[in-house]
C-alpha cells in the first residue's frame, strides 16, 4: 500500500514521550547515574565504574535474600494459583450466593498491606493471638518470633490469605466468560467433569491465569510491608526478602550507590523471570504437543 510519508506526525507522540520520560525514563536514569558513583555528600561524588555492581554480586547477604525470595515466590505461585482456580470453580455462578461469595472473597484485597501485617502479627502471637494461643494450647510449639520455620510459614500463609482471592476473582471472571454452549457440547459429547475442566475451563482460563501468575509473581517478588510489619525480617534474617534488603541498604545505611546498583539488578531479575514465565505459559497453552498423544497420521 502507499503510505503517505509525514514526519510531522512524530509531533503527536511528543506529549506521551514527555510523560513517560518524566515518570519512568528520567528516574531510571538517575538510578543508573547513582549506580556508577560514590555519593559522599550531596555536593561530593566520585565516579566508581562497576565497583558497586561487583560488590553487590558478591555480597552474601544479597545472595541469601535472593535465594529466600525465589523460594518464597515459588511457594506463593505453587499454593495460590491452584487454590485460586479451585475457589473459582467452587463458587456459585449466579444469584445472591455468587454476590455474597464475591464480597467475602474480595475482603482481604481491600485491607492495606501494613494492616494485613498487623492483623497477622497479633493473630499469631502465642500469648494473646487467637492462632498462636490455640496452636500452643493444642501442643504445637509455635512462635514466629523465635523459630525461622514458624516465621516462614506465617508469612506464606498470610500472603496466601491476602492474595489468593485475587487469583480466584480473575479465574472466576474467566470462567463466567465461557458460553453455555461449551458445557452443553461437552455434555452431549459425554465428557467427564475432569475432561470439562481439562479441555474447556482450563484452556479458556489461560489468559486470566497468565495475568494472575505474572501479577502474583511480581508482587510476591517485591513483597515488603507485610513481612516487615510481621517479623521485621527475622528471626535473624530468615524472612528478609529482597525489598527489605534494599531498603536497609538505601535508607538504613544510606549507601545510595550500592542500592542503586542493586535496584537495577532487581529490576532486571523481575523482567527476566516475567519474560521466561510468560513465554513458557504461552507455549504450554498454544503450541504444545497434541494433548492426548494419539497417533494422528
Amino acid at each position, binding site marked *: 500500500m502507499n503510505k503517505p510519508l509525514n514526519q510531522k506526525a512524530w509531533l503527536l507522540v511528543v506529549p506521551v514521550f514527555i510523560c513517560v520520560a518524566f515518570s519512568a525514563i528520567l528516574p531510571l536514569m538517575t538510578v543508573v547515574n547513582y549506580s556508577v558513583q560514590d555519593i559522599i555528600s550531596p555536593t561530593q561524588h566520585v565516579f566508581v565504574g562497576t565497583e558497586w555492581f561487583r560488590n553487590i554480586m558478591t555480597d552474601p547477604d544479597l545472595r541469601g535474600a535472593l535465594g529466600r525470595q525465589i523460594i518464597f515466590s515459588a511457594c506463593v505461585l505453587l499454593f495460590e494459583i491452584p487454590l485460586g482456580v479451585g475457589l473459582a470453580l467452587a463458587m456459585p455462578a449466579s444469584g445472591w450466593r455468587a454476590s455474597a461469595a464475591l464480597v467475602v472473597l474480595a475482603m482481604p484485597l481491600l485491607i492495606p498491606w501494613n494492616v494485613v501485617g498487623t492483623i497477622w502479627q497479633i493473630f499469631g502471637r502465642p500469648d494473646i493471638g487467637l492462632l498462636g494461643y490455640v496452636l500452643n494450647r493444642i501442643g504445637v510449639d509455635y512462635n514466629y518470633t523465635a523459630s525461622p520455620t514458624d516465621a516462614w510459614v506465617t508469612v506464606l500463609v498470610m500472603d496466601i490469605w491476602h492474595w489468593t482471592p485475587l487469583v480466584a476473582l480473575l479465574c472466576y471472571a474467566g470462567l463466567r466468560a465461557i458460553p453455555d454452549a461449551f458445557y452443553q*457440547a461437552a455434555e452431549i459429547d459425554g465428557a467427564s467433569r475432569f475432561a470439562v475442566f481439562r479441555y474447556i475451563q482450563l484452556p479458556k482460563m489461560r489468559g486470566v491465569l497468565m495475568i494472575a501468575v505474572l501479577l502474583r509473581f511480581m508482587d510476591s517478588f517485591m513483597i515488603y510491608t507485610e513481612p516487615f510489619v510481621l517479623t521485621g525480617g527475622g528471626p535473624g534474617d530468615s524472612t528478609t526478602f529482597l525489598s527489605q534488603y534494599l531498603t536497609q541498604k538505601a535508607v538504613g545505611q544510606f549507601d545510595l550507590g550500592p542500592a542503586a546498583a542493586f535496584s537495577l539488578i532487581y529490576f532486571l531479575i523481575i523482567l527476566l523471570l516475567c519474560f521466561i514465565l510468560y513465554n513458557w505459559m504461552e507455549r504450554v497453552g498454544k503450541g504444545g504437543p497434541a494433548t492426548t498423544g494419539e497417533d494422528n497420521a
Partner: protein
Amino acid sequence: MARIEFQNLGHAYRPNPASLDDYALQPMSMVWEDGGAYALLGPSGCGKSTLLNIVSGLLTPSEGKVLFNGRDVTLQGARERNIAQVFQFPVIYDTMTVFDNLAFPLRNRGLPAAEVRTRVHEVADILDMARELPRKASNLSADAKQKISLGRGLVRKDVAAILFDEPLTVIDPHMKWMLRRQLKKIHQQLKLTLIYVTHDQVEALTFADEVVVMTNGRVVQKGGPEALFLRPDHAFVGYFIGSPGMNLCPVSLDEGAIKLGSQRVTVDASTLATLKSTNGDLKLGIRPEFVRLAGDGEAGAVRAHVTRAQQLGNYQLVTANCEGHVFNAKMEPGLRVVDGPVWLRVAAPETVYFSNDERIAVRAAGGA
C-alpha cells in the same frame, strides 16, 4: 436414527401458565419422521430455540411428552438421548487437534483406539477434512470449526438426531452456500434425522424437506416449500416467507363482492360463499409474484397508486398504495410502469383468505 414425536408438548418458563401468552412454546403435537430434514423457522424469540432445547434434552418441558422411536425420553438428559448438536458459534476444544476433537466423543465412551481411528477417518473423508486432521483446531477458520462440531456428531454411530442451532451465523456468505450443499449431501448419504433452527427462510427452504414455521411460541405451519409459499396456513407464514412477503390487507364482505376499503372487488361465487360462511376478521393475501396490472374495472382488480418502481435486474419491484394499504408486485423487468394511478388485480386464483389470521380453505376449485 430416530423418529421424533411430540405429544401435547408445551413449555412455560413460569409455573402455572394462565393463558396461551404465558407459554414460550404453546402445546402442540407433531411427528418428525426418521431420516427427515426439518427446519424450525421463525423470528428471534419465537420459541424455536426452546423447542430445540427440548428435543436435545437441555430443557425439560413443563408439559407433554417427547418420544424417540416411541420411547418416552422427556425426562432424559442430552447424553442419554444420544443427540448431537451444532451450536450458533463453533464449539471446539481449542487445545486439541482436529483428530482429537473428532475422537473426543468416542474416547469418552471408551471405544478402542483402532475403532476410534477408523471412525474419525471415515467422518473426515465425508467432511472433506482428512488433510486437516493433525492440525490444531483453534487455528482453523469458522466454517472448518463448524464442520468439526458437526463431525463430533457424525462420528457416533448411535446418534438419534443432529440438531443445528443457526449454525451458519458466523460463516462467510459463499462458505454458507458450500456448507449447506455439503450438509445436504451428508443427509442424502447417511439418512440422518436433521433438525435445523434458523431465522433465514432461504436457509430453511433449501435445507429442509419440511419447514416448521413458528411465531410467538406457536407452531403455525409445518410443510414443504411449495405449501408454505402457495397455501400459508397463517397470515404470519404468508408475511414471513417470500421476499418481499405476501401482501396482506383487511377486507369486508359486501353484497356479491368483497370490499377493500371503499372499493368493491368481485370474486368468484364459490370463494364468496366460503367467505360468507366464516366469521372473524377477514384478510386477503396475495403474493407479489401474482399481483399484475389489470384493465379498468376488470374482475378482481382495484384502483391503486404506484409510488415506486424499482428495477432489480431479473424483475422490477412495484410498490403501490391502495386505500392506505401497501401492495408489492414483482413484474417483468421490461414492463413500463410509471408512478400514478393503475388497476391491480389482487383477487386472483392464487389469492388466499384468512379469518382471524387462519387460512380459509376455499372449497371449490379456483380459490386456494
